[in-house]
Each structure stands twice: as structure tokens, then as C-alpha cells.
């Protein structure tokens, strides 16, 4: 009786529909977990766009929603990069904005008017649920075990490597790009396995969507041909590969060229040449394959070598000639710096100065992936065991993903999917082996398969009748230990991920928070205070000069034209701003007048101890300016003779006279009792006499001195230069050597 009821219970779990229902429920729960894990900053602060880049995407989305798609496509933005302007419609990746706009209009059509800001903030968590599902689909193609897929979805949902760029509020291209990446890979594997044109076309369409969304599409453009090439070299050329790859290449390249920002790059740059080369190579191979079936093999051999080798050689020669003739552009700086890591620091300091482009430190791997990082090689090894076409893909992806993740911190993001998939395969194989309660059938036994707890009991009754005791991996002790250990690992993984998300990746960086003495949260909202002041109390087209970091935020929150912003497309313009910031007032003033600057904005963290301020970034400004004007701006002059970078009395003259130094410390010493002015970030005591500013007036300083806004003085009414005008205003008492002593001449009448 009990055996029967247990039997029925066991059978209940075996039904196909039960399993599907379980899978659906589990996937929904995983999506829910991934979404809620990304909501820390919305709950702690508010629903606001974070950081810097997302503000531009938000502004572009608002423009799209307000003005429609055609105006957006042709948008020329004259409120950025003054006086150059920017052809924004043609120099951005529109996928993200169009997605948000589509969701906005769809919801409005369903009479649920959600504010566009909320859509933009919540887009990334919503797509992270979809990414988990895509990881599930991808892993399902790799192994027949369904638990691997679910584990991959769970890992992908909460892995910090992905969360870092997809928290609520991080409205950046990666929010949808990673979903498209994983889904494109899934479609590619599906197309390859089936050899179907339809799946290949779907893969191409999603690849096109991915090209519209993120500059990292070049990863797919290089990985799929590489996969095809490895398969060919392994001797696994097949007609399915031909069908899938050529369909993907033909449709995908056409789709990618529709985006104005990509334009003709797929036929003109070196990053896309591998795809084209493999395409041609595949045509060759298909032809050879066809011929092989037509003629006897000995003739075929000669034919093969002469014909095929000749064609391949000619093709390669043509490629090399074209590249050296300049018709095909060589690897662009951003990609070249992935191979030669020292290149950017010397030649393109802007790329080198971005903190995300630094090489990855070793702890970052564990920080972002926890125990997945040591299961990852195990999963790749298991792929080697099977080594069907799709497993080769995982291996190739793993190798190249690891290399790139090691070169640039930002590319940890592209490594995370394959780590999740491989680790899921490894964990699933372990758990599948050890969770099965049955043992291999000794004489006359029936082995049952299915879910664990119920069958364990059924197996127990049959176990007693075995003659041999079970040992090794079949004993309950070993099963218990292994399963228990992995459960602990999984729980610690969840705890680690939640801790990392909560502490490291949920800061909006527009709003800072600290704790008061009574434990309550004190919000430091200086950025928004200053931006709101700018927005309400300056004229509509007052031009703001600041370092390029804040350009998008000023454009988004303060709604004023800026000189340079985070797009960094014009290095000379940025170097001009850098030169203005790092030169003496007499040199900076003409530059500012020439660019019609009304206000200058600097970030100063000395009062609060906020270390992300402009004095800390100052050396990058100098370096970038030096790249264009090596005669006028020299980095060495900002270091003391002993080689230190100092801001107190020991600072060099160039440093003390630079506009940035003066703007940061103007009036700062009056805040403290005399002689005790302290810069809390650099940890030094400042000189008693603060700097004097002649060409600027202090317009606004925020509450904790984080943002300081200065107004550029108009030309003097009497035509004097500002230094003498200011000296006159201050009274002749403060002689700062502005008077020149002329040799006295005897007057003879």
C-alpha cells in the first residue's frame, strides 16, 4: 500500500506537463529574483537615472518620445559640443532609445501612462529577467539535462558581473545588449544544429538589433566566424554550417549597415574582415564539397590543392594589399588597445583615462563571479568530453572571453554569460550524478529514475535486498556530503551576490549618502542642487564649461549647452578645455571668451572627503592637453622637483596658477580658522592665503562645496586686463607685483 502511494507520488513528478509547469514557475521566480535584486538604489534613494552615460541616453529617449522617430533619426544637437554641435542621430546606437520609446507607446496604447523616466529606470531589470531566460535556452542546447538550463538562468540572473551594468537606473546600452548577445548566441547554436535558414535569419535579425544597441557587437562579429573557422579546422565542415553561417552573414551584415553609426564599417574596417573572409572561405568549401561528390578522389586531391589553395591565397593577398593601401581601415584604436595594452596610454590618453578601460585586477574575477569562476574551467572541460559543434562554441567563447576580460575591466560583462553557462553545466552534472537516489541495477533490479526524496524511500525498500553493500559514489554518505557541500556553495553564492549588489553596484553616484550621528541617512544632494540652480537661474542658452565627465549630466539635469561631454568624439576640443583648466588665467580667458563660455563648473571634494573630484582627475586633463600642445602644457611642471603631486604650499607655481587649482580652492580657506584649512581628500593643510581669481566670479557653491560654479567676467569697461582691474578693486595695498617700475627719467623743460 505504501509502495503504491509512493509510486503514484513518484509518477506524478514524472509527467511532462508537471515538469513544464515546474520549469515555468522556476523561470518566473528566477526573473523575479533578478529584478528585485537590482532595485536596491530605487528603494534606498529614488527612481533616478544613475551615473553619467545614462543621462545622455535618457535625454535622447525624451527627445525621441517627444518628437517622433524621423526627427530623432535626423537630430542635430546644438546644445552639446558648443560651438560644433553633434549629429546625434547618426552617432549613437539607437536600439536602447527605440526600445524604450516602443515600450512607452505600447503602454500608453494600453491606457497605462507610465512616465518615461520610470520606463528608462526599470528597463534594465526587466531585460535582466529576459537574459536569464536566454541563458536557460542557450544551456538547454548544450546538454539534455534540464537542470543545467535552470541553473544557468539562476546564475545569470544574480551574477554581479552582469548586475554591475544593469541595476535599476543604469540606463545604458548594456542593459539590452547583453540580453541580445546571449539570445543571438542561442539562435546561432540553434541554426547550426538544425541547419535551418529560418533560425539563421532570426539570428541575423537579432544580431542587427544588437548592432543597433551596443558597440560591443564586434564581439559577435568576430566570435561566430571564429567558431566556424575552428569547426572547419577540426574537419567538421558540414552543410548545416554553410547554411547557418551564410544566411547569418548575408542578412546580418545588411541589417548592421542600416544603422547610420555603423554605416559602411562592415566592409571597410579590419574588425569585420574575419567574418567576410570566413564567408568567402565557406563558399569555397561548399563548392569543393560538391565537387568531391562528383569526381574520383585522386583527381580530387590535385584539384583541391591547386584550385582551392590558389583561391585562398589570392583572397588573403587581396586582403593584405587592401589593408596596407588604406582601403580597409586597420584596427581602430579602441580595439587595437585590446591586443596591445600599452598602446592607449601613449597614443590615446582619453581611452586610457576611463576607469572602466583599465586592466582587470585578479580579485575582480572572484568579486564578480564568486564560485562560478572555479567551476568555469570544469564546465569547459565537460564540453570537451562531448565536443559536438555547440560545445566547440562554448570552448571558443570561453577562451576569448577570458582573454578580453583580463585585458579590460569593462569586458567582464561579456565573460559572464559563458561563465554562467559552463558553471551551470558543471554543477548540473555533479548534482545529476549525486542526486539520483538509485544505484546501478544489481541482478534483477529495476532502476527507477525521477525526483529524489520520494524515490529515495522507494529505493530504500529495494536496497535492503541487495547482496553487495553500496560504496563509493553510490553510498548515501558521499551523496549527502557532495549535495550538502554544493548547497552550501550555492547559498553562499546568493549571499555574496546580494552583498556585492547592495554595497558596490547600487550607488546612483548622483546622490551620495552618509550616516548621521543618530544613524539616520543623510543625503548629500549637491549635484542636483547645483544643477537645479543652473537650470532655474541662468539664461536658457548659457554655455557651461566643465570637464567632459559631467557633460551628459549637465545636459540632462541642468539643460544647458556644454562644451564637451562624455561622447569624447573630438579629442582636440577636449584638449582645449583641458588646456583652459590647466593654464594661467591670462591664457584661459581668451579660450573661454572664444568659446562663449558663460559659466565654469568644477567638482571639489576637499570639504567632504569626496575623492572623485576634479583635482584628482587633473593630471588626465594635463596629459590630454599635452597631447595636442606639448609646448604650452607640460605634465612635468605640475610635479614638484621630487616628483610629488602636491596641492599645499609645496605645489609648483604652474599648479598654483592653473585655473583648476584656483577655482577649487578659491575662498576655501575662509571657511576655517586661519591656518587650518584642510583638504580632506589629499589630506594636507592648505596655505593661509587662498588663490585669487581675476577673470571669474564665484556664482554658486553647493552646500557641501562639491560643485562650484563660476561666472566668466565680461570684458572690462575700460579695456584693462582683468588682473589689473581686480588689483585696482582690491586697493593698492595688496601689491602683487603688478606695477612695473620704469626707470625714472629726469624731466627737462
Amino acid at each position, binding site marked *: 500500500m505504501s509502495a503504491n502511494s509512493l509510486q503514484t507520488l513518484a509518477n506524478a513528478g514524472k509527467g511532462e506537463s508537471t515538469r513544464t509547469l515546474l520549469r515555468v514557475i522556476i523561470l518566473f521566480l528566477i526573473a523575479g529574483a533578478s529584478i528585485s535584486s537590482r532595485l536596491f538604489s530605487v528603494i534606498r534613494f529614488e527612481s533616478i537615472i544613475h551615473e553619467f552615460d545614462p543621462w545622455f541616453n535618457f535625454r535622447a529617449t525624451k527627445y525621441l518620445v517627444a518628437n517622433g522617430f524621423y526627427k530623432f533619426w535626423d537630430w542635430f544637437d546644438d546644445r552639446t559640443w558648443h560651438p560644433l554641435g553633434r549629429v546625434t542621430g547618426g552617432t549613437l546606437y539607437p536600439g536602447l532609445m527605440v526600445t524604450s520609446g516602443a515600450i512607452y507607446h505600447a503602454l500608453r496604447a494600453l491606457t497605462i501612462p507610465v512616465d518615461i523616466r520610470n520606463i528608462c529606470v526599470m528597463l534594465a531589470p526587466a531585460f535582466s529577467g529576459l537574459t536569464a531566460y536566454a541563458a536557460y535556452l542557450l544551456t538547454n542546447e548544450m546538454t539534455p539535462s534540464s537542470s543545467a538550463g535552470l541553473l544557468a538562468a539562476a546564475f545569470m540572473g544574480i551574477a554581479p558581473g552582469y548586475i554591475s551594468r544593469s541595476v535599476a537606473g543604469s540606463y545604458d546600452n548594456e542593459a539590452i545588449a547583453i540580453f541580445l548577445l546571449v539570445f543571438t548566441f542561442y539562435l546561432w547554436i540553434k541554426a547550426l544544429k538544425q541547419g535551418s535558414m529560418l533560425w539563421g535569419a532570426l539570428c541575423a535579425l537579432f544580431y542587427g538589433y544588437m548592432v543597433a544597441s551596443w558597440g560591443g557587437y564586434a564581439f559577435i562579429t568576430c566570435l561566430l566566424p571564429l567558431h566556424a573557422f575552428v569547426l572547419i579546422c577540426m574537419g567538421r565542415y558540414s552543410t548545416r554550417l554553410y547554411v547557418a553561417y551564410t544566411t547569418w552573414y548575408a542578412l546580418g551584415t545588411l541589417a548592421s549597415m542600416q544603422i547610420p553609426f555603423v554605416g559602411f564599417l562592415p566592409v571597410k574596417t579590419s574588425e569585420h574582415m574575419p567574418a567576410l573572409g570566413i564567408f568567402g572561405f565557406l563558399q569555397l568549401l561548399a563548392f569543393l564539397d560538391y565537387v568531391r561528390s562528383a569526381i574520383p578522389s585522386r583527381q580530387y586531391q590535385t584539384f583541391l590543392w591547386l584550385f582551392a589553395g590558389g583561391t585562398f591565397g589570392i583572397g588573403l593577398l587581396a586582403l593584405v594589399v587592401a589593408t596596407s593601401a588604406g582601403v*580597409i581601415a586597420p584596427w581602430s584604436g579602441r580595439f587595437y588597445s585590446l591586443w596591445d595594452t600599452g598602446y592607449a596610454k601613449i597614443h590615446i590618453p582619453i581611452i586610457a583615462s576611463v576607469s572602466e578601460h583599465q586592466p582587470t585586477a585578479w580579485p575582480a574575477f572572484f568579486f564578480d563571479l564568486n564560485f562560478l569562476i572555479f567551476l568555469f574551467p570544469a564546465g569547459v572541460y565537460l564540453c570537451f568530453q562531448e565536443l559536438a559543434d555547440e560545445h566547440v562554441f562554448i570552448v571558443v567563447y570561453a577562451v576569448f572571453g577570458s582573454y578580453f576580460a583580463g585585458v579590460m575591466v569593462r569586458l567582464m560583462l561579456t565573460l559572464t554569460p559563458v561563465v554562467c553557462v559552463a558553471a551551470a553545466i558543471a554543477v548540473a552534472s555533479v548534482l545529476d550524478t549525486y542526486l539520483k537516489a538509485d544505484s546501478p541495477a544489481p541482478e534483477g533490479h529495476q532502476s527507477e529514475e525521477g525526483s529524489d526524496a520520494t524515490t529515495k524511500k522507494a529505493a530504500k525498500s529495494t536496497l535492503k535486498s541487495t547482496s553487495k553493500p553500496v560504496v563509493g559514489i553510490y553510498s548515501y554518505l558521499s551523496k549527502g556530503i557532495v549535495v550538502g557541500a554544493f548547497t552550501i556553495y550555492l547559498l553562499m553564492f546568493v549571499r555574496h551576490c546580494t552583498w556585492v549588489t547592495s554595497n558596490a553596484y547600487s550607488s546612483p553616484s548622483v546622490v551620495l549618502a552618509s550616516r548621521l550621528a543618530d544613524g539616520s541617512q543623510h543625503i548629500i544632494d549637491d549635484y542636483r542642487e547645483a544643477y537645479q540652480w543652473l537650470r532655474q537661474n541662468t539664461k536658457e542658452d548659457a554655455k557651461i564649461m566643465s570637464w567632459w565627465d559631467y557633460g551628459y549630466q549637465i545636459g540632462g539635469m541642468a539643460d544647458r549647452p556644454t562644451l564637451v561631454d562624455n561622447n569624447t568624439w573630438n579629442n582636440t576640443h577636449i584638449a582645449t578645455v583641458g588646456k583652459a583648466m590647466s593654464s594661467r588665467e591670462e591664457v584661459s580667458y581668451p579660450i573661454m571668451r572664444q568659446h562663449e563660455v558663460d559659466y565654469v563648473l568644477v567638482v571639489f571634494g576637499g570639504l567632504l572627503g569626496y575623492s572623485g573630484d576634479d583635482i584628482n582627475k587633473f593630471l588626465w586633463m594635463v596629459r590630454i592637453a599635452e597631447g595636442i600642445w606639448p609646448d604650452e602644457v607640460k605634465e612635468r611642471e605640475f610635479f614638484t622637483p621630487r616628483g610629488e603631486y602636491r596641492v599645499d604650499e609645496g605645489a609648483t607655481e604652474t599648479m598654483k596658477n592653473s585655473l583648476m587649482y584656483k577655482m577649487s580652492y578659491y575662498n576655501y580657506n575662509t571657511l576655517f580658522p586661519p591656518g587650518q584649512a584642510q583638504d580632506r581628500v589629499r589630506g594636507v593643510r592648505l596655505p593661509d592665503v587662498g588663490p585669487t581669481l581675476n577673470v571669474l566670479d564665484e556664482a554658486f557653491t553647493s552646500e557641501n562645496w562639491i560643485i562650484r560654479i563660476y561666472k566668466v567676467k565680461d570684458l572690462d569697461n575700460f579695456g584693462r586686463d582683468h588682473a589689473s582691474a581686480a588689483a585696482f578693486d582690491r586697493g593698492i595695498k595688496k601689491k602683487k607685483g603688478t606695477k612695473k617700475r620704469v626707470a625714472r627719467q629726469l624731466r627737462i623743460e
Partner: protein
Amino acid sequence: MAPKHRNVTPAAQQQQPVATSSSNVAAAPVAAAPSSSSGSVSGGSSSSKMGSKQQNSWDQVVVNIANYYSKNTPQRTKLLDAFMAFLVAVGALQFLYCVLAGNYPFNAFLSGFSATVGQFVLTASLRIQTAEANKSDFPSVSPERAFADYVVCSLILHFFCVNFIN
């Protein structure tokens, strides 16, 4: 953008060896009916690199190919091959025009050329998927499904081309 004469695009250049190689093959079967002389001429062009010593074997190879082709290929597949040959010819013409008359506007040239290349590739895939010999390779794609896929993919291809021609 000033029209650039003699601007040979690398894509076209890369395509050219492939196109000519497949034109070699395609030209051969199409010309199988009239004569195999054109085939031998094209075969001769590739053999000219090697010298006349192996002329005999080359001729034999090509003749073997031609015979095999005309005997063993069903009518439907020959139709596909004829279409593919037409596409190659159109593509070659476009490329020739680009070389002679400059490639301005570039997107129009690319769009037209990609249409021929893309359609060629899709037709080749259809040919592969409907060939009897390959049935074992495609367990989940029946010939009818292959044709339906072909139609859908061609629609997508031409949609992009029309959008890109501007």
C-alpha cells in the same frame, strides 16, 4: 563624396575570386548543353597557372564534373542553378560598373551587390537543403519547410536592400 574611379572595394575584391570561382562552375553546367568548350576555357584559365603539363587531367576533371552534373541533377535543382548563375552575372555586372563608373553612392552599390550575393547564398542553401543526398543532414528541415524558409529569408533580405538603397 566625390566619385572615386578605380576604387576597387575590398568586399568586391574578396567576392571576386569567389564569384569567379563559382562562375567557373556555374558557367560550366549552364554551358553544358551548348558545349563544354566554355567550361574547358574556364578550366583552362585556372590551369594556365600550372602549365600545360597537367592539361589532360584538368580537362578530364572538368569533363567529369560536367557529366556528373548533367546526369545526376534533377530538373528542379538545375532551375536553382540557372537562377544562381543569373545572380552571379548580375553581381559581376554591378561590380564592373562600380569599377568603371565609380562607387558613388556607395550604399546603392552595396545594397544592389548584397542583394545578389545574399540571394545567391540563400538559393545555394535551398539547393543544399532540397538535395536528396543531403537529407540525412537535415533531420528537422523538410524540403517544404526549406522552401518556406527561403521565401521568408528572401523577403527579409530584400526589405533590407530596399531600405538601404535609399
